[in-house]
């Protein structure tokens, strides 16, 4: 009797060593696949923006259909990797909060005054459901305007920040 096909047999990733990713004069990404076809205006998309930042990067063509998936950015050639990392960094902006200075709540909207790796910022949160705590202690925050912030591990913040944060979770 033949064994059932495993789903993983069906999934192929791009051959990282043979893909080249470059930037053209219009600051668009140009991807050349191992079979020689090239795509311009390529958009890299993280499959797991929260949990995997450098793996499983889907490359979409200008129409939005998928060209292929880069399993691990680090396996690309150095030039390609730098271009892709640079682009991802632009597309995904999520500062890490290092300290919470104050929380000010009124009518269910909380104003956060925080220090992040990218500088100090103040933002408002409309509902506590926009604060997601993961099991690892990681906290993901979406503010009123759709900006994102994260706390790598809230247990490692200073006690005052933890106390403030706990009022929100």
């Amino acid at each position, binding site marked *: *009797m033949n064994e059932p096909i495993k789903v993983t047999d069906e999934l192929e990733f791009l051959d990282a060593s043979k893909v080249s990713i470059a930037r053209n004069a219009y600051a668009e990404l140009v991807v050349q696949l191992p079979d020689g076809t090239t795509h311009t205006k390529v958009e890299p998309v993280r*499959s797991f*923006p929260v*949990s995997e930042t450098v793996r*499983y990067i889907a490359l979409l063509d200008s129409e939005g259909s998928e060209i292929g998936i880069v399993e691990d950015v680090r396996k690309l050639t150095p030039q390609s990797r730098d271009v892709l990392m640079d682009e991802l960094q632009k597309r995904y902006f999520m500062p890490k909060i290092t300290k919470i200075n104050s929380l000010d709540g009124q009518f269910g909207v909380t104003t956060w005054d925080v220090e992040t790796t990218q500088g100090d910022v103040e933002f408002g949160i409309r509902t506590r459901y926009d604060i997601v705590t993961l099991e690892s202690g990681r906290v993901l925050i979406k503010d009123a305007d759709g900006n994102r912030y994260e706390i790598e591990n809230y247990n490692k913040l200073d006690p005052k920040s933890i106390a403030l944060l706990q009022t929100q979770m």
Partner: protein
Amino acid sequence: MHNPMSGSRRGKSHRMGSFNGRPRRKKGNNELTTKEDVPELLQKQAQELLEKGEEIKVAVSTDLRFDSTYGKDWLLATDKRLIAFNQSGVLGHDMREVALTSVEDIEILEMYGNNILKVTTSENAFELARYSKRLTPKFNLAVSELEKLPALKDADSGDGARGRGGPGSGGRRRGRRGPGGNPGMQPGGDKSRCEKCGEPIPTWSGVCVNCVQNSKLIFRLFKYAIPFLYIMIPAFLLMLVIRFVAVLPPILSKELVDNILDPAGTVISAAVDNGGPVPEQLPETSWGHLEGIKNVLSGWFGSMPLGGSFGHLIWLVAFMAGIRVFTMAVSSVRGYMMAWVGQNITRRLQNETYEHLNALSIDFFHERDTGNLMSRITHDVSRLRDFIANGLQDIIGDSLTLINMCIIMFLFSWKLALWTLIPIPCLIFFTIFFGKKMSKVYHVLWKRYANISTILASTIPGVRVVKAFARERYEISRFSEMTYEVFSGEMNAAKLGSLYRPMMQLFTYSGSIIIWLVGGWQLFQGDITLGILVMFQSYIMQFFGPVYTLCQMNERFIRAGTSAERVFEILDTPPSVADKQDAVALANIRGAIEFKDVYFSYDNEKNALNGISFDVQPGEMIGLVGHSGAGKSTLVNLITRFYDPNRGTIVIDGHNSKDIRIKALRQQVGVVLQDPFLFAGTIAENIGYSKPGSSRHEIIAAAKAANAHDFIIKFPDGYDTMVGERGARVSGGERQRISIARAILKNPRILILDEATSSIDTETESKIQEALERLVQGRTVFAIAHRLSTLKYANRLVVLKEGEVDEIGTHEELIAKDGTYANLCQKQTELSKIRAW
């Protein structure tokens, strides 16, 4: 309307039947008997018909007559004949006789609010008895008794049409299964009446409130306290200490007044100058009654000269303060201890209940309301905690406080004590009286609040309908009526509440007034000292709390008992589908499935499956076709062992499904349901749910195969997008694709697609079809679909009709046969043409 005479309504569960609006019933009517005592007059009449040696085998009375009035008619049966007595109007009973040998069929016609027993002979038919739904069990039994009569059996043998013989199977069938048919399968949640006492069971509780055996349940509850006794007993002792110490301060105030502030009794002596005996050494005599307490304090007062001094005042006040601080410290320690115990009990009970809930079979959840089960785990459990941890100790403690106070008061002055206690019976009476009133008012109020929630819960999600039909005004006025109801309910509560507290204060105060009056008089008489008067005053103020608690005691017991019953009902229900002891853990299922004459019924009356038999080869894809209610979903529910067949067997790889360990089986079966459920969590977690520890690689692969990958990565958060109750909006089709990915990831040997692609547009569906076509290789697949094009890759199609296999074969074979399937196919083709156009 459906014609009740057609007979297809026969065989509805008597448990499902709503009970008649006017139950005519005596206590003890619950014992089923088919040999009742026939009134003499009727018996005489019947005897005239009987031959020698013929005796009455069955005698049952009805509660309803054919003229639609309540009253007793009779149905008797002997070995040879049926005799029915029917009364119409005021005239006496009318007698009818049917010879058993002529009887061809006995059936029960289920009507609206009543049933009729009908007997058909070769020439005509008689309706012999009419009865309310309450008597359904009795008549079911009676009919099965009648079936046993030999004359009837003989008649049947010539008949030859005994139906298919399945439980509740269709076809010509005499009578119906008696109530004892298969008690083990009785769905528990649909009980409308208690099995023990026959009283209706309230829907909200699901257990009979009358039969809750409080003492037994409460005893059982203590099982949960036992592991924490090492904390509970010290806490209990601490409570005793607190309660004993709590009665001391008034005694100290007495000492303060009598021995220190006014040691010579100047206040009184001034008043009793005109001859009364000066109560010298009065404190001493009083102490005589209270040796125990005196001993505690004697070291103190003994060394103290009678004349008070400021130094002594400080000492005594310091002692009073010390008692307060001590009480405070001990109570807070005890409070913490009991909170720890209480929370531990809650947690244990909750975990145990939830664990058992997970072990229970699907049918348990089908029969019960989710909200009801949720409140059992949250609300009832915490009520039990409160009872175990606080309730009993409160009751003991409060009784103790009251007893202590009474003893002390009686010892110091029994006369004044008697006077003081006069308002207490009134206090008790009013507390109970108001308590009952209040609970009624609050119950009504609670229901009205629930009505508001109901309106909101139905109109807010249904806002599109409300707006589409411009019914906003109507909804607003409906809502406004509800808020008015709540308003008036709240006002009723306020009326009682604002009366209650002042009343209670009045009673307490009247006690205090009595003390001033009677005590003051006794003071003048020299019977008591000023200190005693002060002491009584402070005791009466402490009386109210404990009295109130004790008055609520009964209600507390009842509530705890009901909660306990509700929780224990879950714990006591055995799973209806369970592993046998020697169950096989089938590690690698090949997927050969054989249905052997499988019967199944959800309610034990109407059969969902009526003798299904067919074989499935490993790796075969079977398309299940049929109208809704034909039994397609039921069939796949049996493969996963959500239910077990009532009769017949399902053989998987040569093993009876009942012999296979459920966990092993389900690990190798993947199910995609029509309305798939997503848990609150990320998409990746939802896909990975079927295979713990699955890698991201696998998750992406599964999503790709289910054609879900493309839409998932378009979400800003990709696979990390939160879905579920509060998560991102995921459409029905997207949900289905996520759930297909979930099933595929598991790499199951048996894949069940129950309308898995119904919410997906045809184009996407065909993409999934392609993916599935490759994936189904090497798997046994059961696919249910209304859209027949979905089944184009199926090796064979099984057409079900009313729980039976109607046709079976490949698409071409069935088309050639020009039967049900061909017909369905043609209709759908026509439909699709219209759509295309």
